[in-house]
Structure formats: structure tokens, C-alpha cells
């Protein structure tokens, strides 16, 4: 047997030394270059979402970068915080939200942004999401919903549509999926939006709008896991899946929904794929709701003497 090859060694032979400016990433400064290459498969929607987030914080919001903390849980999306050159933390599975709550309560001037997956936030970490939304803690939750557990190899998640084939539902998924936006709103989120990775600019703008919102803001990103979900359900590659998102998306406003949140349900047909993905800003509390840190300050007044 030959000597064990050292892991994580990057093959530098194909690297271009001093690449010309046009090869630079537009948000080079905001990425931890030494952490790249990423773990993501080519065409993954998480990369798109990270870039949308970076665009949001540079173009569409004035929040100082110093005051943003990116927190993620476990999973493919969980690695996102490690690639972004801001304060960040990679919490344990499902516990990104309590960690962020702790940060926000200790330092109310900080804006925690959670970028994590559907499995992390809605399966193992569902209880925390409900309570953070109930308390209206000033944080932005960006959940990347790819309908599957990607990092562990394609097991069915609580967001996997009925009938979909995965590694652990070889005869088709039996149980119903969650409508994540509906859950967030039902638990008290004061801002809720959903976009697919196809809609890059509206997504970036929605992230910024959610971050400017004082209180619990929730942004659901419908993403493509063509490697684990698309491949087994015959949805094609990354491009094909995004084309499907383009076809299936239905833009909806608060007025269209008129508080009937079932209208925001995602439809999926076995063998065909996504047939309806309602997107848009579903909820934005117009009257500024009082977020938790402010409520703590206003709760009592300390009398000296």
C-alpha cells in the first residue's frame, strides 16, 4: 500500500498565478479566500444565495459590515458562514437561532443573520425558530430550502414533496412537506419573503429589506440540489432545475394572499417536478413592531436611590 495521501491538499498545478482583474470575484473583500474552494457542487444554489446576501449588504442596506454576524448551523448551507469574511459562527446542528438570540440580547446593536438549511432550521431546530419568531428577536433568517438533506447524501427532509424519490424514500416520500413561510408567519415572524435562486436581484433586495426590518425577518430561498434531489427525481442539472423554477414561480403579494397562507403552498408533481412556487414578499408588518431587545429595555425602569 502506498503512503496515505494527505487530505485537503489543493492541486495548485492548474491555478492561474496573478489572474487578471476580470477573473476576480466582485465581492472578493467579503470572502475568506483561504477557505475556498468551497464544498459546494458546481451549480449549487447556496453559492447564488451567498452572493445575493453579499449584494444585499453592499448595495441595498446601510448596516455597517462590522455589525453583521453571519451564523449558520450544520449542513451544506451551514458552511456558508465560513466563506463570508464577516464575524461568523458555525453552530451545532439546529442551534443557530439560539446562538444568534444570545448574540442579539448581549449586543442589541449587532444584526445576526442566519444562513442555514431547511433540515437544520425546520427539522432539528424547529422549536427554536418558533420561539425566536414569537419573541420577535431582531434577526434575519435566510433558510435555503433544497427539499433534501444534501450533505449527508440525499435523505428525505421535512420539506421533501410527497412522492419524491430520495435515498431513504425509495418508493416515494409518504408524509407531507412543510410550508416553511407559513410556519414562520404562524409563529410570529414580522417579515416573510420567498424567492427562488432564479430570481437573483429580487432575492438580494428582499434580504436587504428583511435586514432593515426591525424584528424577526424570514426569507425562504427555494434552491436546487440537482445532485441529490434533481438527479433522483429526473429534474435534470442545475440549469434545468432553475429553468423549472422560472416556469413554476408565481409572484404573489400580501394582497393576493389575503391571509390565506395555503395559497403559498409549493406544488410538486412526481415525474414532472415543481409546478407552482409562489414567490414574493408575503408579509411585512407596516407598523413597526417592537423587537425583543427594545422590549427588554422598555420593560422596566430602574430607580436609583
Amino acid at each position, binding site marked *: 500500500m502506498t503512503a496515505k495521501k494527505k487530505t485537503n491538499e489543493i492541486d495548485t498545478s492548474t491555478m492561474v498565478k496573478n489572474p487578471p482583474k476580470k477573473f476576480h470575484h466582485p465581492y472578493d473583500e467579503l470572502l475568506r479566500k*483561504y*477557505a475556498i474552494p468551497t464544498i459546494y457542487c458546481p451549480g449549487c444554489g447556496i453559492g447564488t444565495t451567498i452572493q445575493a446576501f453579499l449584494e444585499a449588504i453592499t448595495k441595498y442596506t446601510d448596516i455597517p459590515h462590522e455589525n453583521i454576524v453571519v451564523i449558520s448551523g450544520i449542513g451544506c448551507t451551514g458552511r456558508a458562514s465560513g466563506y463570508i469574511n464577516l464575524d461568523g459562527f458555525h453552530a451545532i446542528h439546529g442551534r443557530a437561532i439560539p446562538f444568534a*438570540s444570545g448574540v442579539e440580547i448581549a*449586543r442589541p446593536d449587532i444584526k445576526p443573520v442566519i444562513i442555514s438549511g431547511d433540515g437544520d432550521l425546520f427539522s432539528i431546530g424547529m422549536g427554536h425558530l418558533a420561539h425566536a419568531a414569537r419573541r420577535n428577536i431582531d434577526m434575519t433568517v435566510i433558510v435555503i430550502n433544497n427539499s433534501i438533506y444534501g450533505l449527508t447524501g440525499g435523505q428525505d427532509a421535512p420539506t421533501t414533496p410527497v412522492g419524491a424519490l430520495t435515498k431513504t424514500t425509495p418508493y416515494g416520500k409518504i408524509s407531507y412537506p412543510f410550508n416553511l413561510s407559513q410556519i414562520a408567519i404562524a409563529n410570529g415572524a414580522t417579515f416573510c419573503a420567498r424567492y427562488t435562486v432564479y430570481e437573483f436581484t429580487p432575492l438580494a433586495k428582499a434580504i436587504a429589506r428583511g435586514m432593515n426590518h426591525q424584528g424577526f425577518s424570514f426569507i425562504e430561498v427555494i434552491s436546487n440540489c440537482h445532485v441529490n434531489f434533481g438527479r433522483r427525481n429526473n429534474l435534470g442539472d442545475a440549469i434545468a432545475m432553475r429553468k423549472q423554477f422560472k416556469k413554476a414561480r408565481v409572484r404573489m403579494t400580501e394582497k393576493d394572499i389575503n391571509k390565506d397562507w395555503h395559497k403559498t403552498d409549493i406544488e410538486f408533481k412526481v415525474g414532472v417536478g415543481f409546478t407552482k412556487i409562489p414567490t414574493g414578499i408575503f408579509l411585512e408588518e407596516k407598523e413597526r413592531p417592537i423587537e425583543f431587545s427594545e422590549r427588554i429595555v422598555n420593560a422596566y425602569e430602574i430607580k436609583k*436611590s
Partner: protein
Amino acid sequence: MTIKLQPKVLTGTHFKNGNWAIVEGAIASGIAEFFAYPISPASEIVEYVTYRLPAVGGKAAFIVEDEIASINMCIGASWAGSKVMTATSGPGFSLKQEGLGLAYMTETPLVCVNIQRGGPSTGLPTFSAQGDYMQVQFGSHGDYPAIALTPWSVQECFDLTITAFNISEQVRSPVILLLDGDVGRMMEQIEIPKKEDLVIINRKRPPPGTDKNSFKQFDITGQDDLVPPMAHFGEGYHIFGTGLTHKDSGVPLLDEDLHSELIHRLYKKVEINNHLYPKPEEYYLEDAEVIVIATGISARSALQAVLDAREEGLKAGLLRLITVWPFPKEQIEELAQRAELVVAEMSMGQLIWPVERYARKPCLLVSRIGGTPPSPAMILEGLKKARKK
């Protein structure tokens, strides 16, 4: 609502219980937040802290949705620059294990109080026990060096809480305050010193003028105590923390050499700062032929047994452990050479494992479970039996 500002340190003599003293110790240490879930017999801590902390200008003290959230909120608040504490009992401590593992890996200072109750499972909720001793060191998966302190009186609950915070800030590690339910709820006289007489130590911070772009959160260059200075969120250092094996910048790298280096450093860090941990208390050890080793409420019982034995002419002694993890191995090794050892505890035998390991000979176990500590008579009998061997 208007509330009256209260002093941070309640200097003077009080007649209170251990849970009360822990809260006073934590507030005197300067905690800003407290997150917990109600659980007997630790509920008194959260009840009292929610009354006390806002009145001294603390930021927040409230009940959170579950035990897991409380430990993770503590880690978040600690990374944002606060001193934090959480309190629980056995079942909650089990739930907190994964979070505690994260705190060890990310070198997060915090204090977790565990008021032990009968187990396993729901067990004896309002009764006392000493059955979580092993869980402190081996409860979370993987290898990590635990630090745990065990008081035996209400006075010590106050003093050791301050010590626990000082250790956790200096070593950048979680510290467990491991009490049995009896010490937590026992009423005793307690003397709180003046504010200026208390020694409060805060964590090491990056020196002023540190280059924010090149700062590394886990860099120990030039640190003799192997403790990296800690930057906080929102200061522009762009710090990153992860439970994955990481480089000194905090960025994950799954490499076997790096993992080995990191875990060895964490162990060495706790070992090298050994002088910070309270030493065991010795009673009548000079000429002792048989020595009982105990902690918490069992040690009180054992002291009575030692006095009774001395009256009967049996040269007995007591070694009361205060720092239970890291285990005071040198002292046990030394004592085992000149005396027989007896371990008295409120479990089926947990403390006896490391004692026997370092004594390198069988020791006698006096165990009693079900909420009552081993009585002085039981321990005296054990002392006699061990002497006869």
C-alpha cells in the same frame, strides 16, 4: 414598571441557601445574562436571578424554550462579550452536553451549574444525588478537558461561583459547578465580603492596536498559558468560530495532524493552568492510616465519621475534593502509598473510578443512593473495614 436599583454585592451576613449564594456569586462576578429552563432542584436559581439581575443593571435573565437553547444562547452571548451562566439539573445537563462540547471546542468562557438529583432519567426530581460526576467529563462526545468545582457549604457556593467565573475567563473554557441537591437547598450562614475585597478577573482581550485584518481568534503565539486572547463580535475583527476541527484562524480544516494538535493543546491549556484550581482540603491527614475521600454533602458526613473514628482511637483522615475535574491525581497517588482509601459518595460508585486508577490499588466504596448521603455511621464502618484489610 419601576424597580429599585439594588447593590451588586450584598455585603454582610445572611442566612440563605446554596442556590441563593450561587446567584449572588454570579452577580458579584458581573454576569450580564442568564438563560435557563426550570428544573428541580435548580429552579430556585432561575427564580431568584430573574428578580435580582434586572435590579443590578444586568441585561437579561429569563426562561428560554429548552435546555439546549439555554446553553447555545450562553455561548452566543459569551462570544458577544458577556459573562453568562446557566443552571440546570441532571436531565437538563444531559441535554446540554452537545452545547457544552461546542463550548469546549470553541473555547467559550461560561459557567454551567448542575444541581444534581437522583437518576437515571427523571429519577428523583426533588432528591439529592452525586451521580453526574462522570457525565461532566465524559458526557459530551469526543475528548475534552472538563473543569468542575464542588462546594460543600453555602459560603462555598458563593466563593466557588466567583472562582468558577475567574477560571472560565482565564482559561477560556466552560466551568461546571457541580452541586448535590442538598448543598443547593441547605440553609446556612453566609458572609459576603465587601465589593473591593472580591477578586474578579476578566478574559484576556487582544491588545490595543492589534491589526484587525490579521487577528486570529485561536492564535496562541506568545501566550505562555496557551490561552488565546478573545475578540468579540461587532469589533471588526471578523472572527469565526466552529465546532469543526479548525485552524488558529477558526476556519475549519479536516486534517488529522491539525485535530491532534488542537485537542492536545486544549488538554495542555487546562493542565498548565493547574495553579488556578482550588486544592483539596485536608483534615487530620498527617498521621492518618485510613483516609476517606468525598465531596459535597458526603464530605460533611465523612468529617463527622472521621471525628467519631478518632474518638475510638482509629487514625482516620478526610480529603475533601473541591476541584473534581481535572482530578487531583498527585495527591491521591501520594496518599495511597501511606494509607488505606475509602470513597464515600451518593452514587453507585463514580468518584471511586479515578481514585482507584491513581491509587493503583482497590479502595473501599461507601455508597448510598435514594436522596440521602451516606451516614457518619456507615462511613465509620467503612473506615474500620478498610483498616482491618
